C-alpha cells in the first residue's frame, strides 16, 4: 500500500488485536479459526489484521507461535503477532534471532508478564527488550499485565521499542498523557480507550500517529472500535493513519 492511501477518503483498516484458536471462556457465537476471522473482517470492513494464537497466550508460546505460522501461512492480509518471553529460560529462540524473524515476517510481539510469571522490567526481560528495540519490533501489552511505572521505565530505557498499550479502560488520561508527552515510542490501541473525544484530544495534543486501530476480536465485537475511526472530527489523512497506516508503518509495510 502506498502512502497515497493515507490521503483522501480511502481508509484501509488494519486490526492490531485479533486472535484465533479456541479458548477457555468461549461463548456460543465466537469464531475461533482463520476462516471465521476472515469472514468477520469482511463483514465489518477490516482489510488486514495482526493475529495471535490462543495456544501461545494460554498454553505454550513456542508451540502456539508455530501453530500460528501454520494457520496463517503466506496470506497477504494476516500478519503474525507472536507471544514473546524473556530469554533466561531459553523457551524461545535467542532474542536477536527471534526479533529478526518477527521483523522479517512483518510481525509484532505480544507480552503477558503477569500471566506468564515474569516482570516487565530490564532486570527480567532486558535481553528480549534490547533485541526487539534493535529491530524496532512493535510490542503489544495489555494494561492488566503491567503497570504505569513499569511502562514508564521501559519507554525510558528502550527508546527504539514501539510499545502499543491495550486494554486500558477510559480512565487513563492522567497517567498516559505525561508518557505521551515524554516518549515518542508510546502508542495506544483505541478499542478500549473509549473516553469521550479521546481520538480528537490525543491527536490534537500528541498527533494521530500515536493511535492504533484494534478490536479485540473475537472476544469483543468490532463495531464500537470501527465507529471511533469512521466517525470523528479528524482529517481523512489522520483517520487513515489511525485505521491502519500507523500500524503498517510500525510493521515496515509502508512509509510513515
Amino acid at each position, binding site marked *: 500500500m502506498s502512502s497515497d492511501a493515507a490521503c483522501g477518503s480511502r*481508509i484501509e483498516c488494519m486490526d492490531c488485536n485479533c486472535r484465533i484458536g479456541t479458548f477457555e*471462556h468461549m*461463548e*456460543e*457465537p*465466537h469464531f475461533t479459526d482463520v476462516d471465521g476471522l476472515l469472514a468477520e473482517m469482511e*463483514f*465489518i*470492513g477490516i482489510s488486514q489484521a495482526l493475529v495471535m494464537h490462543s495456544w501461545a497466550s494460554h498454553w505454550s508460546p513456542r508451540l502456539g507461535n508455530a501453530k500460528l505460522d501454520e494457520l496463517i501461512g503466506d496470506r497477504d492480509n494476516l500478519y503474525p503477532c507472536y507471544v514473546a518471553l524473556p530469554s533466561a529460560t531459553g523457551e524461545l529462540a535467542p532474542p536477536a534471532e527471534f526479533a529478526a524473524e518477527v521483523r522479517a515476517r512483518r510481525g509484532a510481539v505480544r507480552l503477558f508478564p503477569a500471566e506468564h510469571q515474569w516482570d516487565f522490567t530490564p532486570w527480567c526481560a532486558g535481553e528480549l527488550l534490547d533485541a526487539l528495540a534493535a529491530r524496532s519490533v512493535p510490542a503489544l501489552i495489555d494494561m492488566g499485565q503491567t503497570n504505569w511505572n513499569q511502562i514508564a521505565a521501559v519507554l525510558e530505557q528502550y527508546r527504539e521499542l514501539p510499545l502499543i498499550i491495550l486494554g486500558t*479502560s*477510559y*480512565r*487513563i*488520561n*492522567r497517567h498516559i*498523557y505525561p508518557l505521551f508527552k515524554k516518549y515518542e515510542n508510546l502508542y495506544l490501541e483505541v478499542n*478500549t480507550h*473509549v*473516553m*469521550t*473525544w*479521546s481520538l*480528537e*484530544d490525543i491527536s490534537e495534543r500528541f498527533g494521530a500517529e500515536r493511535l492504533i486501530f484494534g478490536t479485540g*476480536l*473475537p*472476544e*469483543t*465485537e*468490532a*463495531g*464500537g*472500535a*470501527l*465507529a*471511533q475511526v*469512521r*466517525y*470523528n*472530527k479528524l482529517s481523512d489523512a489522520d*483517520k487513515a493513519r489511525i485505521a491502519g497506516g500507523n500500524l503498517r508503518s510500525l510493521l515496515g509495510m509502508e512509509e510513515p
Partner: protein
Amino acid sequence: MGESTFVEKLKSGIRVDDELVIDCHAHMGPWYNFHIPGDGTPESMVENMDLVGIGMAVAAPHIAIGPDIKEGNRQVAEAAERYPDRLVAYITINPRYPLPEIEAEISLYHDLFGGIKGFKFHSSCHGVDCSHLGYGPVYEYANEHGVPILSHVWDGPDKDGKSFLARQAAAYPNIAFLHAHSGNSWDVIRKLTAEAKGHPNIYLDMAGSGRPYGGLEYMVKEVGADRVLLGTDMPFIDVRCQFGRLLAARISDDDKRMIMGLNAKRLFNL
C-alpha cells in the same frame, strides 16, 4: 439476514441522519475520578451526539450522582431548556436527603416540566441500595405517572426467592425499570436477560464500555428488541462505543431501529 443499511453506513462512515436516535443513558459535566476532554458540557455532548446522528439524550449530571443532586438537577434542567430538542432531564434522587427535600425536588420538577420524564438512581455512588426508604416517593410518583427509572444497579435484598428488582417490577407495573450497563459482560447479560424475561417492565440499557462479541444479539434473542435501549454513558464514555456496536450487530434493521430510539420514545413519552 440480508444486507444491513446500518452496517454499510458504519463501514463508510456515513452518519445516521434519517432515523430516530435517543440515548437513554447520558450524564453531564466533569468528574473527579478521571479527565474528560471537553469537560462534559452540554455543548460538547451535543457535538459528540452529532458525530454519529444521535438526536436526543436523557441525561443525569455527574454532580447529581456524586455529591449534590439539587445542583445536578438544576444543571440538567437548564441544559434541557437550552437544548429542548436534544437534551432531556433525568431527575436524580439521593435517598439520603431528608424526605421532605426529596418530595420537594420531585414537586419542583413536576411543576417545571409539566411532568418528570425519567428518574435516575445511582445507589452505588450514593452508598445505599434501591430498597432505601428515601426512594419511596419516587416509586410512588413513577408508578402513578408511568415514568421510567434508570438505575446503575437494581440492588436490594432478595426475599422469598425473588430478587429485589423482580419484586419491585411486580409491585409497580407502570414503572419501566431500566437496568443500566446490561450488556457489559456475559455474566451480566445472562443474569439480566433471565431476570427480564419474567417481567415485561424490565428493560436493558446498553450503556458502558464492555462489548462482548455476540452479547447484544443474545439480549435481543432472549428478551426481544423492544426491551433493549441504546445508552452510551456519555460523557464518561464516547457515544461511538455503543452506537458502533449497535450499528454492527447481527440483528435486523427493524430491531436496530427499536433499540436506537423507538423504545425510548415510547417509554419516556418523547
